[in-house]
C-alpha cells in the first residue's frame, strides 16, 4: 500500500469562545493554521511543540473528535470529516489524563463497555481485556474501582482502552505523562511492540528523549503550523549540525565570536548568560573541529571550559521553535 496512513492538507482550526461579563466578549483562537503532514503506514510519527501549539487539537481532528475549520485530512485513505464512521473502528485514541473514565466501576468494566461499543467479537472480549490489562501492567488492579487508581494507573487504563480493538492507527496524546520512570519505559516498550505489529502511531510528547528514542520521524508544530518534519538526524543537520560545543567563560569579545564563526563547519553560535559567566553554544557540521581549535581562539581567557556534546533533539527543538517565532 502506497497510500499514506495519515494525511493532512491545509488543516486549520479556529475556536470561537466567549468570555467576560455576560459572555459579551468574543474570543477567536487560531489553534491550527494550515497544517501539512503525511504519515506512512507502519510509521511512528512524533509531534512536538510548545504548550498551546495545537497538538491536541490536531490529534482530535485526525481522530474524528473535532472538525477542522478548513483543509482536509484523511486517515487510512478516508476523509475524517466526511466519513468519520468509517475511520472510527480502525483507529485508537488515547487522550489520557485524570478524566475520561467511569470512576465508579472497575477497570475491567470500563474496558467491557468500550469493547461492546467497538463491536469486539463477543467471544474474544474477555480474553482480549485480560491481554490488554496485562500489556499495560494493570492485571492486579483489574477489578478495583477506577476512583481508587493513581494518576499513572488511569493513564495505563486509557492506553488499554486505546489499543483494545486492534486499531490500525493509534493516536497517543502525551502517553507517558504522569507515569513513573519504569512505567514510562514499559509504555515505550509497548509502543514499540505495536509498531512492530504494524500499527501506525501518531504521538505527541514533551519528552525529547522519548521522541528521539521512539519516533521514525518528527514534526515540530509552532503557532499552528508545522515548522519542520524529518528524521532526528536530518533535523540535526537542518539546525546546523550534529555536534554541539558548549563554551563557558567571562566576557567574550565580538572579535572573538567572529573568529569562532569563521572556524570550518561552525553554523551557529548562541550566547547566553549562565550565572556570572557567559555560555556560548556552537553548532558544528564537520568532524574537523576539536576543542583545541576553540581554545586557540579564546587564548587569553582564564577559567575557560569547553565541552563537546552531541546535538540533542532538545537543541533541535529549541532552535526550531525559536526560529518559528
Amino acid at each position, binding site marked *: 500500500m502506497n497510500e499514506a496512513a495519515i494525511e493532512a492538507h491545509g488543516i486549520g482550526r479556529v475556536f470561537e469562545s466567549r468570555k467576560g461579563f455576560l459572555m459579551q466578549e468574543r474570543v477567536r483562537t487560531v489553534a491550527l493554521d494550515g497544517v501539512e503532514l503525511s504519515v506512512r503506514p507502519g510509521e511512528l510519527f512524533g509531534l512536538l511543540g510548545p504548550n498551546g501549539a495545537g497538538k491536541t487539537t490536531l490529534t482530535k481532528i485526525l481522530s474524528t473528535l473535532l472538525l477542522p475549520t478548513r483543509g482536509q485530512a484523511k486517515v487510512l485513505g478516508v476523509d475524517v470529516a466526511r466519513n468519520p464512521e468509517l475511520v472510527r473502528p480502525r483507529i485508537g*485514541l488515547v487522550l489520557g489524563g485524570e478524566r*475520561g473514565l467511569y470512576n465508579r*466501576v472497575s477497570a475491567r468494566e470500563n474496558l467491557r463497555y468500550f469493547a461492546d461499543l467497538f463491536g469486539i467479537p463477543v467471544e474474544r472480549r474477555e480474553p482480549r481485556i485480560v491481554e490488554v490489562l496485562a500489556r499495560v501492567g494493570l492485571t492486579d488492579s483489574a477489578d478495583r474501582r477506577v476512583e481508587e487508581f493513581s494518576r499513572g494507573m488511569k493513564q495505563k487504563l486509557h492506553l488499554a482502552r486505546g489499543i483494545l480493538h486492534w486499531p490500525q492507527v493509534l493516536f497517543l496524546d502525551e502517553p507517558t505523562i504522569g507515569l513513573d520512570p519504569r512505567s514510562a519505559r514499559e509504555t515505550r516498550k509497548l509502543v514499540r511492540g505495536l509498531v512492530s505489529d504494524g500499527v501506525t502511531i501518531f504521538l505527541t510528547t514533551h519528552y525529547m528523549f522519548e521522541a528521539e528514542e521512539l519516533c521514525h520521524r518528527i514534526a515540530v508544530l509552532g503557532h499552528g503550523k508545522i515548522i519542520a518534519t524529518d528524521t532526528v538526524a536530518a533535523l540535526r543537520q537542518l539546525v546546523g549540525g550534529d555536534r554541539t560545543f558548549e563554551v563557558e567563560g567571562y566576557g567574550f569579545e565580538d572579535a572573538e565570536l567572529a573568529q569562532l564563526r569563521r572556524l570550518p563547519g561552525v553554523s551557529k553560535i548562541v550566547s547566553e548568560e549562565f550565572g556570572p559567566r557567559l555560555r556560548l553554544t556552537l553548532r558544528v557540521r564537520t568532524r574537523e573541529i576539536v576543542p583545541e581549535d576553540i581554545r586557540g581562539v579564546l587564548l587569553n581567557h582564564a577559567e575557560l571550559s569547553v565541552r563537546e556534546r552531541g546535538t540533542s533533539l532538545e537543541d533541535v527543538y529549541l532552535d526550531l521553535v525559536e526560529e518559528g517565532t
Partner: protein
Amino acid sequence: MIELSVSRARSTLASLRLAVLMFLADPQWLIPSMIAPVIFGLVAFEIFRGSGPYFVVYAILGAGMMSMWGQTLYGSGWATGQDREFGTLEPTLQAPTPYLYVVLGRVIWNVLSGLIGGLIVYLVVILAYGRPPPLVDPWAFAGLFVFVVLTLAAVGVVFAAFYVYTRYAGFIQNVGEFAFYVGTGCMFPVVLLPFWTSPFSLFFPPTWALDALRYLAIPGYAGFSWGFGIDLLGAVGTTAVYLAVAGSVFQQVQRHVLESGDLQEY
C-alpha cells in the same frame, strides 16, 4: 485482522449494564429520588382531597407521572451531562456506535427506576387514603400505561441530545422542569390551564397519552374535547415523530459538537 461488528442492540445493552453498575456502585442516590415521589404523592393527595373518589386516581396518576417524568427524562439527560463531567463523552463519541444507542440504554434503565418512583407514589396515596376505586378498564389501562412509559422514553431520548449539544442543558432543564410538569398536564389537566399553553403541551407525547390514560381510569372523564380516540392517535403520532427524529437529531447534534469543539467542557 479481527473483524469488528458494531451492533446497536449490543451497545444499548452495554449502556444499560453500565448504568446499572454505576447505580449499584453508589445506590444512595435512590433516597433523594424516593423522597420526591413521596412528597408529590402527599401534595397531590392534599390538593385533590375531598373531590370525590376518582380524584385520588387523578392524584396517583399525576404525581406518579411527575416522578417518572423526573426519572426518565431528567435522568437520561443527566447521564449525558455526567458524560461531559467525567470526560467520557469524547471517548464515547469516538467509538463507532452512534451515541443515540448509548442514550437508549440509559433511558431503559431510567424508565425501570422511574417505575419504582411511580410505585412509591401509588403506595403513599393508598396509605394516606385507602384503596382507590376500581379502574374503568384495568387491562387497557395496563397496556396504555406501558405506552405512556414509552412516550416518556421517547422524549427522554430527544432531550438527552440537548445535553450533548450544550453544557448549559442542565441549567435550562432545571428551570424548565416545573413548567413541564404543569404544561404536560401531569399536575393539572391541561384543559384547566390558560388557553395559550395547550398548543405547547401538545408537542409532548405524554400530554396525549396521559389524557388517554385518564379516560381508562376515571369514569365519565372529559379531558380534551376530542375524546379518547384522538388522544390515543395523538400520543402514537407524536411519539412516532419523536422516535423518527431522534436519529437525525443525534446526528445533527453530534456534528454540531464536532464543529464547536466543546465536548470536554462541563
